[in-house]
């Protein structure tokens, strides 16, 4: 483990996620190795790095959708596939086209009931109570992301930021213990990026949810993060922003000179990393 662990609140010793010696392959070629990470409940960790570094693939490995080349992933003390119901997931770049005639509320509801077979018949009092509880849970999740005002409108008619909030609500509605958000800030304008970052911070703290958020730019997240996992040059570094995003550490990771500039307002600019981080349209895979 390269990065230092943050102070732990009492009684939260169990880690939400741990990666040990994880290596990933794509098309028989190793794209990532020696990933070590420990995330505790309530911690907000950003996963950074240039495109092609394997950020999305690593997220899919944590979800059990992609096999590991070596190493181990433990989610909430168990195997990823067994933890599925307790992981909230927001994949990369989803948007609904204008003609999708389904309400935001129904999209959120799928996060809770989309995996259930059969139809609920609310005939018994118990079933009716359950149905009320489901509706209440959806209302809470929508309120938590601040989407109450437009949740009943068809999702295709909403803006990118509004859709993103509802999708976060969908990921949250099942009360997950680990939340994986793959580039949720992509395609949002700057004020919305800041708002969503603040929202994720609040959710992590208040709901004691461990959050992994994939981003290509650390700046909108700077004041909200606990730690970063920086992927690049086939390897990974974990730690606080100040520990990891330094010229020394990144040069070591990439094995080529990299500069880190800090603007007067605290914003960070990484210069000279081998792969250009601005092709958002290519699949990070």
């Amino acid at each position, binding site marked *: 483990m390269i990065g230092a662990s943050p102070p732990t609140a009492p009684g939260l010793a169990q880690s939400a996620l741990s990666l040990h010696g994880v290596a990933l392959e794509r098309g028989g070629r190793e794209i990532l190795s020696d990933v070590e990470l420990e995330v505790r409940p309530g911690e907000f960790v950003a996963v950074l790095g240039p495109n092609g570094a394997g950020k999305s693939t690593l997220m899919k490995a944590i*979800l059990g*959708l992609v096999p590991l080349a070596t190493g181990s992933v433990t989610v909430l003390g168990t195997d990823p*596939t067994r933890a*599925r*119901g307790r*992981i909230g*997931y*927001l*994949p990369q770049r*989803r948007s*609904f086209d204008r003609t*999708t*005639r*389904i*309400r935001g509320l*129904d*999209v959120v509801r*799928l*996060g809770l*009931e*989309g*995996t*259930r*077979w*059969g*139809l609920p018949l609310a005939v018994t009092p118990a079933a009716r109570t359950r149905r009320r509880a489901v509706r209440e849970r959806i209302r809470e999740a929508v309120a938590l992301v601040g989407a109450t005002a437009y949740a009943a*409108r*068809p999702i295709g008619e909403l803006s990118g930021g509004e859709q993103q909030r509802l999708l976060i609500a*969908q*990921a949250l509605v099942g009360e997950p213990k680990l939340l994986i958000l793959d580039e949720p800030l992509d395609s949002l304008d700057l004020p919305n990026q800041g708002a969503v970052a603040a929202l994720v911070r609040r959710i992590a703290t208040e709901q004691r949810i461990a959050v992994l958020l994939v981003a290509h730019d650390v700046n909108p997240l700077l004041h909200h993060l606990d730690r970063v996992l920086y992927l690049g040059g086939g390897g990974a570094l974990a730690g606080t922003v100040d520990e990891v995003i330094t010229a020394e550490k990144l040069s070591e990771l990439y094995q080529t000179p990299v500069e880190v500039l800090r603007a007067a307002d605290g914003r960070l600019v990484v210069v000279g990393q081998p792969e250009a981080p601005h092709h958002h349209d290519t699949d990070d895979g």
Partner: protein
Amino acid sequence: MTGNPSLSADLIADVRQLLAFPFMVNALEAGTIVAILAAVVGWYMVLRRQSFAGHTLSVMAFPGATGAALAGLPTTLGLYLVCSAAAVAIGGTGTRGGRSLGRETAAIGTIQTFGLAAGFLFLSLNSAVLGGPETLLFGTFLGVSSGQVLVLAVVALLALSVLTLIGRPLLFATIDPEVADARGVPVRALDIGFLLLLGLAVAATSQITGALLVFALLVAPAASAQLITSRPVAGLLLSVVLAVLVVWLALALAYFSIYPVGFYVTTLALGVYVLIQAGRRTARRA
């Protein structure tokens, strides 16, 4: 008063006249069953943007019926077999998620053309048996037997039961395949399963509307319902109501006139869609 159907101003007398003939009762029963089935399956089809696959499956009813006649099998059996086989073939071409449009569209188009050609070949090999392609392509309500109604009812009950069972995961896989997959919903199996249901619905519906006009009943009521409401349950119910009304009215009009039922089904379905679309435009402008 002759034995010919005649429309009077007395609605109740008209309806009584309609129901006086067993063939008309059979047609109404069969029409109601296929309307419900097509409306429900069609609602998912429109949401999944699989209209092209739906159209291809409906074209498959043509080689299905003519092929069965050539092989000496019951027409109904041929319809169900060929439509299901085509559904599996289309499902097989789809990549994960089932709707990676470019490749799938090309494959479906090829299957569709092949189906039409095969249907025409079968027809030219035994035109004596079938009389002509018009009925197969454009439908009739004259020849629906009680046995056929029973088969339709069984197929519809089966298809709707399966759809009830998979309804919510199918909606999840439709709206949000990636997350559904991550949550353990068998997205690929649902894709193929849904195409099979679509094949069944098409085979059933084509017996009333003909192979080429099935589409009217699959698409128009569902698309109209989705224009009106974005609530899933309300949309499904509305789609059913519209489809049943269209079929009833079409059968009545076909009975009292010399024009085929398929024409009325299509015209009414289109009319409903156009009216709702126009109504929405007006409402938005107001």
